């Protein structure tokens, strides 16, 4: 899977956006996800991900 500009091997057990976020340990973070150029609403996180997908994930942080 192509995530934030890098090819990353993701186990086959990861089938949805939500599972991907859990795998990347981002499930409790504040993130915005784009899948193949389409920005996702939170309701869309049950959407299926494929190994050929291009994913962008932006995490909000607070420090300054």
């Amino acid at each position, binding site marked *: 899977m192509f995530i*934030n*500009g890098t090819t990353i091997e993701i186990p086959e057990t990861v089938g949805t956006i939500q599972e991907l976020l859990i795998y990347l340990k981002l499930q409790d973070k504040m993130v915005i996800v784009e899948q193949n150029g389409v920005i996702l609403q939170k309701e869309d996180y049950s959407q299926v991900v494929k190994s050929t997908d291009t994913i962008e994930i*932006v995490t909000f*942080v*607070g*420090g300054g």
Partner: protein
Amino acid sequence: MTSRYSRQELFSPIGYEGQQKICQKHVLIVGAGALGSGNAEMLARAGVGKISIVDRDYVDWSNLQRQQLYCEEDVREHLPKAVAAKRRLEAINQEVKVEAFVQDLTPSGLSAFQHVDLIIDATDNFETRFLLNDFAVKHNIPWIYGACVGSYGITYTILPHQKPCLNCLMKTLPLGGATCDTSGIIAPTVAQVVSYQVTEALKILVEDWDALRNELVSFDSWKNEFSKINVNLLKQDTCQTCGANPTYPYLSNYSLSKVAVLCGRNTVQIRPAKYQAIDVKQYEKYLAPHVQNIHCNPYLLHCQIDQYKLVLFADGRVLIHGTNDVAEAKNIYYRYFA
């Protein structure tokens, strides 16, 4: 004679006309830590007419690694960051009018800034950012979100009513945790976020609106990652801040949270229920027999009580270092300051 801003004027998107605009603009910088320092220095060098800086903290040894406006002398003098920043910025460019405010940002404090041209977010917490967002949207002031932790940085420019506001974006986010960053930070991360913020700031100050970035940008310069997302579709018509019927929830329901644990700092801040300017010198006389290592300047008083380090500011706030426990901190506060 070559003008001070000649290189910037030779840059054609700014030019002489753009420089004239920059020199007449007023920028509010909220927070004078790492991002605040970097933004303030670049904007002062760029010749912004007036810069107002709000910060509630004072300069500490742990700041010097990345907060570029400060030096060892500022730490020794226990100077508030806003005051030390003003001093340094005026030394860099005396043509810029610099205002320093040593205080927490509150709705009433913000009301003095209704006419600024731009707000730079350099805070370290979302409570203040949501307040800023409400205020900026209500008064139609562009603002630039910036944040960083470790080698990761993120930034986004908000043009009220034209792009989704912070409240729109957060509606799509699972809120919880992640606002308290304890993973450290390296200086290049700060500089990179600052570069994005100031470039966007210059575009806004010269009114080159078409040049503005339309995307949320993030990067991790240690992991060599970069990401940008166009978030325009996340603008919500029902948003309570920028939607059709705004209530500005963070401005109107703002409660002066009297006690705040400062994330990752092992520090509790206690603010009196009613704002009252105090004379810290008076407290010095009163406290001296009961505490150790007391030090006082016109802005604050520092002292040590057992394992705690206390800082009393002239706006009445007290920082109690050495604990994250609110009850413990209140106990000390009431014993010495109530």
